[in-house]
């Protein structure tokens, strides 16, 4: 029975994510004085990709890469409680806490990187290098923030963290622990890999990049994952810092706003080089994180 609810939740999240992606793409286009794609464009892309029959593979790991990637995304979904107080949509969050989710992010990255690696394309390794490098430093402020809120709430269970934030906006971590929230939100920019931290994606923008390697069904899986992952990360931040959600409506709104924030920032700032972004994360966000721990 659980599985049915979980799948239901997954279905909702995927659809929501696709829509959100479409809407955001349109918004950014408008900001850039372009017309942009229709909001349902992600659906079209997805379906098209899954429909392509011709497949090329470079080997087992190449084949399994997208599986790993999607498993990572879905895994985060599976272990994340979605709606507070709702037994149905708490998924498998009883199997592990916040730490599990933090570490589950690695699985997808690893699988993807391995798959791309077996493709043997130089751009893929460049992208992987950049992604991994940046990711290590992005995690620093986030980890500090997590420690800070763990100290604050004396728990690592997401459900309990959300529970502690109930009772109005003044109980949100945003208010009770603004430093941690600040640090985490800065690192969120890096996690979402929008500008200025999207040099990671640069190889993909190249016509010869990994998207050409991973195509068809593979690409479809990757896209699915990206949709899920984006939303889930937003939900994670929502749960940790913005009081969680007691129903789907609030969840949609909050997730959209949180998701919109890196997009907005990305629309404003130019790209950093990778070594610049590494340093950047280790300065201001990390400092905030440290302060968050000191002043908790």
């Amino acid at each position, binding site marked *: 029975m659980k599985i049915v609810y979980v799948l239901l939740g997954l279905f909702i999240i995927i659809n929501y994510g696709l829509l959100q992606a479409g809407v955001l793409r349109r918004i950014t286009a408008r900001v850039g004085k372009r017309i942009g794609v229709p909001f349902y464009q992600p659906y079209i892309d997805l379906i098209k990709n899954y429909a392509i*029959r011709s*497949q*090329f*593979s*470079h*080997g*087992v790991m190449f*084949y*399994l890469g997208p*599986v790993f990637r999607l*498993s990572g995304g*879905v895994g985060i979904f599976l*272990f994340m409680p979605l709606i507070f107080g709702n037994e149905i949509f708490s998924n*498998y969050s*009883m*199997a*592990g*806490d916040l*730490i*599990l989710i933090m*570490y589950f992010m*690695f*699985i997808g990255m*690893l699988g993807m*990187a*391995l798959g791309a*690696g*077996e*493709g*043997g*394309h*130089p751009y893929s*390794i460049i992208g*992987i*290098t*950049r992604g*991994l*490098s940046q*990711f*290590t430093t992005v*995690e*620093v402020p986030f*980890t*500090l923030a997590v*420690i800070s809120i*763990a*100290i604050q709430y004396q*728990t*690592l*269970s997401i459900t309990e963290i959300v529970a502690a934030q109930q009772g109005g906006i003044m109980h949100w971590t945003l208010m009770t622990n603004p430093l941690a929230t600040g640090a985490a939100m800065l690192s969120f920019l890096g996690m979402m890999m929008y500008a200025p931290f999207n040099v990671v994606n640069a190889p993909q923008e190249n016509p010869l990049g990994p998207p050409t390697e991973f195509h068809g*069904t*593979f690409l479809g*899986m990757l896209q699915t994952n990206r949709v899920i992952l984006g939303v889930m990360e937003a939900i994670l931040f929502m749960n940790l810092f913005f009081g969680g959600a007691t129903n789907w409506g609030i969840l949609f709104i909050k997730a959209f706003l949180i998701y919109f924030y890196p997009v907005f920032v990305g629309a404003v700032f130019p790209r950093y*080089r*990778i*070594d610049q972004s*590494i*340093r950047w994360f280790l300065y201001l966000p990390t400092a905030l*994180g440290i302060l968050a*721990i000191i002043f908790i």
Partner: protein
Amino acid sequence: MVGPIYIIAISLGTAFSLGFFKKANRNISFGLMFFAMAFVTFISGQWLYAFLSHQQETIQIFTAGFKPPFSISLQMGFHEAVFLTMINVLGLLSAIYLFDHLKEKGANMMMVFMLLFMGLNVVVMTRDIFNLFVFLEISSITLVGLIILEKKQDAISSGFKYLIASGIISQILLIGIIAAYYYGGSLFINDMVDSNLLFVKGGSVAVFLILIAVVLELKPFPANGWALDVYQSATPGIGAIVSGAVATTSLFILYKLLPIGGDAWLLPIGITGVISFLGSNFLGINQKNANRILGYSSIGQVGLLMIIMSLSKDLGDKFEFVFFSILISHYLAKAGLFWISGIINKDEIGQWNIIKNKPGLIVLTGVFMLTLLGLPPFPSFYGKWELIMNLAHSGNFTWIAIILLGSFFEAIYLLRWFGKTLMNNENSEELIVKFHKIFPAVISSFLILMFSFLTARWSGLMSVKYFIPFAIALLLFALDFLPVFIKNIMAIATVSWYSYVLIYQTYIPENDILRIIFGFIFLIGAILLLFPGFTFKGKRRGFYPLVILMFSGLAGLIEARTTFQFFFAWEMMTLASYLLIIRGKNAKKTSFSYILFSMAGAFMMFIGFGLAYFETGSISLNALADVLIYANWVYILVAVGFLVKIASLGVHIWLPDSYTEADDDVTPMISSILVKSGVFGLIILMLSMSLKNAASSNIPYILGWIGALSALIGNMLAIYQEDVKKLVAYSSIGIMGYILFGLSMMSHLGWLTAISYSIVHFLYKALLFLAVAGIIYRTKTRNIYEMGGLIKRMPLSFISVLIGIITLAGMPPLVGFAGKWMFYNAVILKGWYFQGAIVFFSGIVAFLYCFKLIHNIFLGPIKDNHRKLKETSVWWLIPQFVLIIGIMIISVYPKIILEPIGLYLSMYFPGEGLVWAGTTASTSLGYWDATQIMMVFAGMFGVIFIILFLMSRKVQVVEQFNIVFQAERPERPETTHYAHNMYAPYNKALGFLAAPFITNSWEFIYESFHAIGDQIRKFYTGNGQTYALHIVMYVVAFYLFINGGF
């Protein structure tokens, strides 16, 4: 029984009658001489036997039929018998060794040779001081004569220096004697001791002159340039005599005459010894000439023995044991080394690698050098232990520090030298070893082994069962001619038997969780890691005895119940691992730094144990808990030894290269098993000390920071490595830092993390190194940029590495995550947020090199020369898959290890453990259900995989892009790997963290030592006159010092 007077009569008679044989066949002369010397040896041995076997009384031999003091008397007591036997045995061996020299030079030199030993014999026995002077002159004249056995210009001029110096010394002695006669009225030593010479004005000066002359005979630093030149220039056979017999005799003179000076002279003698010991060992570091090094070392050892003599009061009834065990080690080993030096016949130690292809000689050299260093199981080890412990008991920590410092200096040059003997040898000069040259050295090494056993038994510290590993190692050594396959089976059988006895029969019934765990890691691990040995062809000479010694050392650590046993096992394991590492082709330099750091750490530990003994008076490990006053010191000192082993930041620089350069199947042993000895040591230490001791509570805090920084720096360095073994090696530093951090948290969860992580680390590090080694075995390269695309060729290895790095990186669902999760909880509960954050950051950094490892080896385009590669040998794969199974079991059901450990720990850390509900573990902070996660993951992965499989039915496998050789030929091989230097941006941003400033600062220290030593030794100008001046200055300075003139 043959009276001792016949020693003299026979020697002199033979020597005088050799004059009849001057023109006769030299073999006859030699035979006569040898027979006489053998008989003399027999006489002394017979007396020794009499003293040992039954209550033989000390006897006096009166010459001329009058009682002393009216005539000269000789004394034969136990001590005399011991020394005489030593001297005469050396004489016999030297005679064999110098056979060709003596034969070439004829009867004259044989007389001289023989009379040298006669002189030494009388010097030992005589109780008349003027007689002592006369026979001392005999021995120095004979020695000068023997120096010219080899006609070298250097030898002649050094003989002249020696003559001048010994002439001055004997004149000083003579003046002292005549004045002592005037003031004391007797030349009989016993009378002189009883008389009140010291209290007569002038009489004390007479005593001073006599004793200073004796001290000068011991060639004290710095008034010893003449002696060093002799050591250097004389043929090494003479060096053996000088350091073995003459120095021994001189020590006996000091022992005999010291009572004249009374207690007031003990301290000055001790200080002289200290200056000699430290000074000459320090200068020895700079030497390159083999015989001169041996000379420095001899002088240093004599200094040590002088120190011991001056501390005889503090050592009490252990004095004899300490003195004798160190003396005999020095005597046998130094002579042996001189003999080997003669065989090799190369001045520079850099050229000693000529023995590279002579395993026998290497073993002998090793035995002698390690004996000098006082490593187990050689006699000096027990001597040093008793020395340090008894000094500690009476609180003489200054002396302890001095002794250990000097020993460390000595270790530096001896070990460097040992390393050089194993250097690769390009020139194929064949070394001819004559039987009569090698024979004495062989005998000497046998004697060392015999005394190892005897001193061990005599010390009462060792029960017979500790010799079982040695017996097995010796057996394997004797069976060294067998092929690897059989020896490997034997080794596995031995370790299996050992682990059966220890773990199954002992620990499991006792339910001693800690020992079960580490027994498992050490021994079961050993069995697994011995499997790849089957892939080796040929004999692998010397490998298996060392392996057995190393593992039995590790087992000994677990077994140890006293600090002695612990230290013994520790040193043995260190030694064996050092020798294993040094077997690697280019491992000489790095094994040197390994052993230096280890020795320094061991010495610290030694002092720590001494301090504990000082306070508690017990050498039981449990007694560490009773240390209160010096708890912090003990804690720090002992911990340093362990920190070296786990390569914590600051003392880590030995590790990467050692791991890298060791043999491919040795590396996993060291990296996954041996380092755990440090962890085990820390656990034992902390369990015994910190928990019950509030005073030491801030040390874990420091250790915690060290651990965190080690984790960071180790991982940071790992990501830039292009050598695959080095990469894994650096990661070990990181992981060990992680474990150290866990332990130093001093909480239930921290320890649970650390201990379980020790197990996990063992599993995946062994797995990774085995996989890597298996790959190296096929690809014949360690450079990561020369690999690539191997996934299709070696899929099984790929799986191993994949599992290994997933575990290492701590990704769910594998068991690595358990560590991370518990860690978070522990850190937050403990409140060590920043250290924890650093450790986390480094954990993420670990992800970088994990990926590099798997990607650059297995993915991407394959190299042309690897296209035909096969999967690695099954012997590499068997242990890998056993380990994988282990990892999987623990991953699915971590409760099986975590729960018992938790129970065990709750004895020490009540509360704050994991609470188990079914398969869910929880703390007050969070929860985690490994089994469920695994199931969810597996299900999800399977579903997604099936979806993909269904949707992409016709997959066409294509080759990768080959972008490498598109147009130009690369100039450097590394540029042919498309992912070379993949973390360049990271280096650009955070490279400063990986700057080798620690290595540089250690090197700076080492270089400074050299520079200082180089300046100091300039005062040995080589001018005989200057040396004479040194002697006179030494006398004056000593006089001023004694009389408070300074």
